[in-house]
C-alpha cells in the first residue's frame, strides 16, 4: 500500500491546472481558472448551474479542449485530445450513465477499454473475474457480471459505472454527480469505497449538490462562479452559509419588465397537479397554476423539472397522480392531445435545434407546423392564410430575417427561439410550458422574451418557466417552485424569491439560516 498521502498536503499536487479558459460561442464557460488537487484527498467542487464545473471535468476527461492554459498531471505537462488519452494517463471519470453500452454485459462494459487477453483473444473467464472483483470493490457484488446493462435499474447501472472506473486503477478519480441516481444504501457503500480509495492514495474530485455528502467526504472544497474559480479552502473552514455566499453574487445583466401586483383572488387554478410520480424522477409533485401567472421551476439542472413539463405535455407513460386542467381531470396521452385539449398546452423544448425546429425548412414552414389546421381547409394549406399567420407572428415577436422563405438554420439562436415560440403562439395556447428558453441566446433577445412572457401572462395565459438562470426566475416569475431530487422542496413567492433563497433551496438547505449568516457553523 502506498504511503498514506494525507500528510503530504503541501507536497506537489497530482493535478495542477493553470490559466484554463474555454469559450463556447458567446459563453465564457471557464475564465483563467487555476485548480489543483492532491493524492490521498477528496476535493469537492461546488457551484451553481453554469458555474463551469462540468466544463472543468470535461477538459480533464478529454471530452473538451481548453482554449488556453496548462495541465500538469503527475508532474508532467499533459494534453488530453480524446477520452482515451485521459484514461491512459490514469484519470477515470464517472459521468451520469454516459459511458455504458446498454446491449453489452456488465463484464464487457467494465473491461471494455482493456479486456484481459489470452493468445490475443478476450479471456471471458478472466474478464468475469475482473468484473466481479471491481463490482465487489465498489460494494455492488449483487450484480451478475453477465447481465446486460439494459436489464439493470438506473441505480445499479451507476454502480457499474463506478466499478468500471475502479477497474482501470486510476490515479485520479472524478465523480460528476455520480450519486444522484443511487439509493441511500448504495450511497453509504460508495462512500466507504471512496474513503478507502483515499487511504490508498487516490486523488478524488467530487462534484455533488448534496451539502451533507460534501461535509462527510471532502477534505478540500473549491467554489466556482461564472466560469471563475473563486475560492479553495479546507473542508470545515467555512460554514454552509459562507459557501453559499461564495456561490452566488452573479451580476444581473438584464432588466426585467415590472411584475403586476399579485391578485388576491381565489380563482380556480387553470392547471393543477397532485402527487405526480414518475420513474423515481418525479416524486409527489403538486402544483397550482392560475391565469395570468408565471410559475418558475428552480433548482439545479436535472432534478425533475423537465420531467414535469414532459408529463404535462403527454410524452411520459404511466405517470401516477392527478392532472387537472380547468378543474377537469385529464391524462395527457401525447403532445397532439395536449395541444388539442380543452385548453391548449404548448411546450417550448429545451433543444430548439432538434426538438423545436426543422432546421433545413423555411421559417414559414416552421411557423405553421404546430397549427396547420388553422391555415388549411379540407387538408389543403391555404397560402393566403399561411402568409397572414406568418406575417402576424413575425411582427408580434419581431423575428429578424431576410425573408420567411429563408431556412431556419440561417437565423441567429435568438431568432430561432422566437420562431419556436411563435409557432406555438399561433395555436393561442392557454398554458405555455418553457424549458430553459433563453439558454445560449443573446441578451437583447432575452429581454424581448421576458417582455413577451409578461405580455402573454397579462393577456390571460398561464406560464410555467423552467430556467437554469436564477436571475431569470427572480426577474420573471410570480412564484418559484424549487426542485431537488424529483421533489418540490420549497415554493417561493413575490419578494421571497431571492438568489440566496433559490440557491439554498436548490441545495436543499433551510432558507432561514441564510439571514446574514447569523448562525455560523449551524450546519456542520
Amino acid at each position, binding site marked *: 500500500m502506498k504511503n498514506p498521502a494525507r500528510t503530504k498536503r503541501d507536497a506537489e499536487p497530482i493535478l495542477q491546472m493553470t490559466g484554463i479558459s474555454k469559450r463556447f460561442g458567446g459563453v465564457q464557460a471557464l475564465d483563467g481558472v487555476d485548480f489543483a488537487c492532491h493524492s490521498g484527498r477528496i476535493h469537492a467542487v461546488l457551484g451553481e448551474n453554469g458555474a463551469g464545473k462540468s466544463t472543468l471535468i470535461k477538459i480533464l476527461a478529454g471530452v473538451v479542449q481548453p482554449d488556453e492554459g496548462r495541465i500538469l498531471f503527475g508532474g508532467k505537462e499533459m494534453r488530453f485530445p480524446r477520452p482515451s488519452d485521459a484514461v491512459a494517463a490514469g484519470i477515470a471519470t464517472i459521468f451520469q450513465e*454516459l*459511458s455504458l*453500452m446498454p446491449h453489452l454485459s456488465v463484464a*464487457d462494459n467494465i473491461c471494455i*477499454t482493456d479486456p484481459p487477453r489470452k493468445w490475443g*483473444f478476450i479471456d471471458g473467464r478472466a474478464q468475469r473475474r475482473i468484473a466481479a472483483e471491481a463490482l465487489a470493490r465498489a460494494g455492488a457484488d449483487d450484480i451478475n457480471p453477465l447481465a446486460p446493462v439494459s436489464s439493470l435499474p438506473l441505480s445499479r447501472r451507476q454502480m457499474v459505472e463506478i466499478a468500471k472506473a475502479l477497474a482501470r486503477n486510476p490515479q485520479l478519480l472524478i465523480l460528476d454527480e455520480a450519486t444522484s441516481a443511487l439509493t441511500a444504501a448504495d450511497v453509504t457503500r460508495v462512500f466507504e469505497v471512496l474513503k478507502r480509495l483515499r487511504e490508498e492514495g487516490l486523488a478524488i474530485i467530487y462534484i455533488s449538490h448534496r451539502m451533507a455528502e460534501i461535509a462527510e467526504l471532502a477534505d478540500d472544497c473549491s467554489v466556482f462562479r461564472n466560469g471563475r474559480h473563486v475560492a479553495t479552502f479546507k473542508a470545515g473552514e467555512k460554514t454552509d452559509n459562507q459557501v453559499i455566499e461564495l456561490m452566488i453574487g452573479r451580476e444581473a445583466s438584464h432588466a426585467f419588465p415590472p411584475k403586476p401586483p399579485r391578485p388576491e383572488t381565489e380563482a380556480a387554478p387553470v392547471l393543477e397537479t397532485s402527487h405526480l410520480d414518475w420513474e423515481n424522477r418525479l416524486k409527489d409533485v403538486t402544483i397550482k397554476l392560475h391565469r395570468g401567472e408565471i410559475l418558475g421551476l428552480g433548482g439545479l439542472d436535472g432534478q425533475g423539472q423537465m420531467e414535469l413539463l414532459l408529463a404535462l405535455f403527454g410524452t411520459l407513460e404511466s405517470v401516477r397522480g392527478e392532472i387537472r386542467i380547468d378543474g377537469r381531470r385529464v391524462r395527457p396521452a401525447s403532445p397532439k392531445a395536449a395541444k388539442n385539449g380543452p385548453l391548449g398546452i404548448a411546450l417550448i423544448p429545451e433543444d430548439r435545434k432538434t426538438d423545436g425546429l426543422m432546421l433545413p425548412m423555411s421559417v414559414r414552414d416552421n411557423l405553421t407546423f404546430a397549427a396547420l389546421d388553422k391555415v388549411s381547409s379540407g387538408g389543403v394549406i391555404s397560402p393566403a392564410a399561411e402568409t397572414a399567420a406568418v406575417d402576424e407572428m413575425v411582427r408580434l415577436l419581431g423575428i429578424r430575417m431576410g425573408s420567411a422563405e429563408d431556412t431556419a438554420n440561417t437565423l441567429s439562436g435568438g431568432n430561432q427561439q422566437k420562431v419556436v415560440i411563435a409557432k406555438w403562439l399561433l395555436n393561442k395556447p392557454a398554458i405555455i410550458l418553457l424549458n430553459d428558453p433563453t439558454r445560449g441566446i443573446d441578451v437583447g433577445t432575452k429581454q424581448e422574451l421576458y417582455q413577451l412572457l409578461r405580455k402573454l401572462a397579462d393577456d390571460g395565459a398561464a406560464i410555467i418557466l423552467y430556467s437554469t438562470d436564477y436571475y431569470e426566475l427572480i426577474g420573471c416569475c410570480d412564484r418559484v417552485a424549487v426542485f431537488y431530487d424529483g421533489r418540490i422542496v420549497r415554493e417561493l413567492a413575490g419578494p421571497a424569491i431571492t438568489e440566496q433563497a433559490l440557491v439554498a433551496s436548490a441545495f436543499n438547505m433551510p432558507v432561514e439560516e441564510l439571514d446574514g449568516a447569523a448562525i455560523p457553523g449551524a450546519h456542520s
Partner: protein
Amino acid sequence: MSTFRYRLMEHRGTLLAAAVFLALLIFYIANSHSGLNAAVATTIANKGVLLAIVAMAQTLPILTAGLDLSVGMVFVLANCLASALVVGSPLQTAFGIVVVLLAGLLCGLVNGLIIVFGRLQPIITTLATGAVYFGLALWLRPVPGGDVNGDLADALTGQLPGGIPAMLAVLLAVVFLIWVPYRNSVLGRAAYAVGSSEPASYMSGIPIGRVKIVVYSLSGLLAAIAGLLLTFVTYSGEASASIGGTYTLNSIASVVIGGTSLMGGFGSAIGSIFGAFVLRSIEDLLFVMDLDPLWQPLFQGVILLIAVSLGAFRLLRMSNRLDLFH
C-alpha cells in the same frame, strides 16, 4: 437471474432462427419423396451457404449500427474476377484465390475509409461504391463466361466422405477462421460497443474509426469469399445486377431473421447464417408442396415481417415516448 438464463437471453435470436430453420427442415424432409439423403443435403447446402456467407458479411456493419449495400456487388465482382483468375495449375489457382480475396478486402477497406474519414452515412456510401464495384465487374465480364478450376469446384460443391456436403465444411471453416476469432477479439467487442452506443464508446476510449474500417474490410472479404464460391457452383462469372441486388437485400433480411438488431449492438453472424437458411428453405418448401414458385417472395416477406415485429416488442415497454426517436 442465473448465468444460464443470461446466456440464453444473449443468444435468443440465434436460437430462435435455428429453431425455425430446423422446423422448416423437418417439414421439408417429411414432405419430400426422397427424404434426406446426401444429394438433397448437398443441394440445400450449395444454395444456402452462398447467402449465409453474404449475410455474415452484412452482419458485421449492422452490428455497428451501419449497413453495407455493396456486399452483393462485391460478391458479383469477386465472381467475375474468379472466373478469370481461379483457373490453371494449382499454383495459378491459389494465386487467383488470393487476388480475389484481397480485392474483396480492398473494396471493404475503401468503404470503411470513406465512411470514417469522409464522415458519410454507410447506407449512401455503400450504395455508391456498390455501383462502382458493379461497374468494374461489368467491365471485367461484359458477357457471362469464363472458367474455373474444375477439380476444385467439383470438390467444394460435392460431398466429403460420409456424405457431408463440402460447402457446409467451407461454411464451418469461415465461421471458425473469421467469425469466432473476431467475436472474441478486442476489436470485435469494440464493434459491438460502437453499435450499442457510439457516444459511450467514445467516452470509454474506444478507437471508433479503426473499428469501423476493420469491420467494413472484413465485410468485403466475406462477400468475396461468397463470390468465389459462387464461381465454383456456376463454373462461370456473370456481372448480373439482379444477382447483386438480390443478394444484398436478402442478406439484410437474413440478418434480421437471425435476430440481429438493425439498431446495432445486439446479434450474431451465426444467427444470420440460420436466417439465410430459413430464407432459402422457403424456396425448397414451395417446391415440395407443389406450389407455384411465384409465391416465394410473398412467403419470404411474411417471415421477414414476423422477424421484424419480434424486435419491436421493446417499444411496448417505453415510459418516455420521446425515447422512440432516440
